[in-house]
């Protein structure tokens, strides 16, 4: 569980920073931040399941 919390915390903090650094309106920044957050969490979970089925 602690690993997942670290994943969520890391994804949230980095997404907020990237969204702020990004150019565009406030709405575009929020959408960009949410997109990155989703990608961080989603891709990590997909990779975790792929590694789970690998025998080595």
């Amino acid at each position, binding site marked *: 569980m*602690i690993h997942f919390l670290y994943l969520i915390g890391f994804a949230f903090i*980095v997404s907020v920073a990237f969204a702020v*650094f990004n150019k565009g309106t406030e709405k575009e920044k929020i959408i960009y931040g949410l997109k990155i957050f989703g990608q961080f969490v989603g891709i990590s979970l997909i990779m975790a399941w792929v590694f789970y089925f690998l025998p080595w």
Partner: protein
Amino acid sequence: MFYIQVFAVYSLRNIIDVGSQTSHLLLKGSNLNMKNPFIIGSLSWLFPGAGYFLLGRTKRGLIISGVIWSMFIIAIISGGAYYPGLSFNEGALLYLLHIFATLGNGLGYLIGVFLNLNPPPDTASTLTFEYGGRFLEVAGLLNFLAIIDIFDIYSGRKE
């Protein structure tokens, strides 16, 4: 710590506002132009997000300094300061990358070095200290990005 930084930067900004009326600030007997990009960059490195306050971007500064200091505090609580990192023998490039990334924390790097002088004996059994080490590195790298962003704003490349 975050509030101390905000207070310090605001105090500094007031001094700069007074100094900007004469365009130069007298400091220790020498003329020091506080609008110098190297001074803004150095302060941004030492106190993450400080450059935004100096350029009048309070909201952006609050978010970025809050984010970087949060990451740093999580790293310290997780035992990241005790993370030995990679030794030079394990690969010079990885070792230098670790040093470069943690150096980005500025004042946080010095705090980390100070904490690492007396690591607790049960460090190796701590579950999260490797996560802490990674958080410490990423906080430093985010601060480098913030400094580049501040230079972009300063030079007018970004609004």
